[in-house]
């Protein structure tokens, strides 16, 4: 955990290990619903039969149903087809291991953790469409950084939606971190300006900037976002440490358009995938990894503070394919 290294807080290794194990259980149970749909299906498809064209088609169907997208599903199935041929795999069970391998490989392609802080303040901006879960993600992040011993400042940059400032304020009070806010309807760039300067003056470790939810097709709102970014960059005198796009795991193929267009407005550094605790498969993660070079850095699997964690390709794939015994044995 980088805060401790960086700012010299005490390391509580034991607790951490416990927390990580707890998170895995959470991810497993969060993905439990997913498993029931997707994995059972894969299990069913890939048990006690020979590898044939029908099997590939059923697999493609299962992947599409997990929101992996047509392109990525076809890509994965093609990979399997090729490997089955090259490696002379004839039994479906053997092919399953190959599928897990391919999925992990895909997820690891752009995998990266949150950037290690180098300079105070560590500035993180959160962007996304309406209702993706930005504010909740910020609350969880703020809690996490605070637990790690960092001094955290939040900036209420959603000056548009009714009650958004109050929502962040409630979180700030609950967690016990500071908040910079203006009136509803004020200029979000001005909030960002004040926040960066306050962070510098107060020697804040982490500054987290909230932004209003916006659909990526709203050109004027996207330029507003670009402006906020410019102001932060200018006041900071350097690039922001993280700009995270928050994506709802229930989102379908539109997530690709979101990532692409937000990327045009501000230089995204990664994705936070929220609401993975429903029955949504989050297969969009595979599509994002395959079609865009954007790392999923965080996943949210529940409503507790601890339910936001670093994205781990292995853990994710293992949970997705229900291999927790093996994972836990290796710990």
């Amino acid at each position: 955990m980088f805060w401790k290294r960086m700012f010299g807080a005490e390391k509580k290794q034991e607790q951490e290990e416990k927390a990580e194990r707890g998170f895995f259980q959470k991810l497993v149970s969060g993905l439990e619903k997913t498993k029931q749909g997707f994995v059972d299906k894969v299990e069913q498809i890939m048990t006690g039969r020979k590898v044939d064209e029908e099997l590939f088609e059923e697999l493609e169907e299962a992947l599409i149903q997990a929101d992996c997208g047509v392109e990525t599903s076809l890509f994965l199935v093609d990979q399997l087809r090729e490997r089955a041929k090259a490696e002379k795999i004839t039994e479906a069970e053997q092919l399953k291991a190959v599928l897990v391998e391919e999925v992990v490989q895909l997820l690891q392609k752009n995998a990266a953790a949150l950037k290690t802080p180098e300079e105070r303040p560590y500035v993180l901006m959160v962007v996304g469409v309406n209702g993706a879960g930005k504010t909740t993600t910020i609350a969880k992040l703020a809690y996490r950084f605070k637990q790690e011993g960092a001094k955290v400042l939040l900036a209420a940059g959603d000056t548009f939606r009714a009650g958004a400032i109050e929502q962040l304020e409630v979180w700030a009070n609950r967690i016990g971190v500071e908040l910079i806010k203006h009136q509803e309807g004020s200029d979000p760039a001005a909030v960002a300006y004040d926040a960066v300067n306050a962070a510098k003056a107060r020697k804040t470790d982490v500054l987290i900037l909230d932004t209003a939810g916006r659909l990526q097709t709203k050109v004027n709102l996207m330029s507003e976002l670009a402006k906020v970014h410019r102001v932060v960059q200018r006041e900071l005198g350097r690039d922001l440490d993280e700009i995270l796009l928050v994506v709802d795991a229930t989102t379908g193929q539109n997530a690709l358009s979101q990532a692409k267009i937000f990327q045009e407005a501000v230089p995204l550094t990664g994705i936070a995938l929220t609401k993975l605790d429903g029955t949504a498969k989050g297969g969009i993660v595979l599509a994002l990894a395959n079609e865009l070079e954007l790392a999923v850095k965080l996943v949210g699997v529940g409503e507790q503070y601890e339910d936001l964690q670093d994205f781990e390709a292995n853990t994710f794939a293992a949970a997705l394919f229900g291999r927790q015994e093996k994972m836990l044995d290796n710990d």
Partner: protein
Amino acid sequence: MAFQNLSARLQDTMRKLRGKGRLSEKDVDEILREIRLALLEADVNYKVVKDFVAHVKERATGQEVLKSLTPGQQVVRIVNEELTQLMGGTQAKLTLASKPPSVILMVGLQGSGKTTTSGKLARMLKAQGHRPLLVACDVYRPAAIQQLQTLGEQIDIPVFTMGEQNPVDISKAAMSHAQSHNNDVVLIDTAGRLHVDDELMEELVNIKDAVSPSEILLVVDAMTGQDAVNVAKSFNERLEIGGIVLTKLDGDARGGAALSVKAVTGKPIKYVGVSEKMDGLEPFHPDRMASRILGMGDMLTLIEKAVSAVDEEKAEKMAAKLREAEFTLEDFQEQLSQMKEMGPIDQLVGMIPGLGSAKQLRNLEVDESHLKKIEAIIQSMTPEERRRPEIIGGSRRKRIAAGSGTRIQDVNRLLKQFSQTKQMLKQFSSASMGKSRGRRRKGMFSLFQ
């Protein structure tokens, strides 16, 4: 964009089938494969797509082809019709109780847009002469109550709150409040919840039992993926919903969730959310939604409109001019009058596959009165000026402005726009030229043949 490839592929397939009088099963299969992909890309649920495609196939195989359409278009027409039908009629009617107050319960996942939609609906009801009361039952999300209160102030509608108490108690209290304050519609905004969260789903059932709503609306985000079926199914099974509101349709999501949700619940989509503002709630139009999901614009309508309005010979000439970039203001004027016959320009742009999402056109807002001005300006030019706009200097501009009753700035703007348009048309022309070499061209509309 994936969908443009798809649209192009579909057009390729359709081209191959040109001139056939009857469709074989294989022909239909070929087109349906593309349709299937289009639907999946639009996030329509896999199973729903499967059933749908099977149904269309039955109808399309062996069909006589209409004279005016190519076989490919015929299949697309059937798909469009079936999609529209599947999505139901325009049913923007809320079920209200015979004896007021009527209760409308708003339910859905977190972040789907319940609170905003509640505000919009209340505003609409007020405009229809009702006296709505908003009830804040989201006691979980921080400041959700405050959000509703702020919205209530904006639209001048009372909001009933009891802080973070039991939502069932709040609902009951709101009912007696409504009765004593003469409110005839009670809109209950509930907390977002996962359909698999048993405890919270039970809470909704309890609210339902306590206030017997005449209408339960499931609020669904248009960007939802394959999981929309599970969400809709669960909510419907637990609550027996009355209808659906599809939100965030002002984005670029194709909205396949609409079809999935409709297919799995059989309940009508009553409204769609089209902006963050309080007036952004509209009745649902199944035909528009069908075109959007197919990602093809309103292709058939456009074909029909184009066929009736565009004189083929003129179009042929126009195409040649476009190709050689000899497009003049005279042609521009002619184009304008032809387009006017076809209907509002911004709708036309939306109907053209690929163009609807073209970046240069995203901001294009066409003002019809502006067009009149343009016509007046062009009519005030000499034929020579129309053919060679580059000769229009300062004093000619002054004369044209005076003659057309406009300002010099208007003339300047038109000339600038014209040169930009010319540039753009040149791009489109050369882009589509590559693909369609050797085919008879009819301007932009050749895309559809």
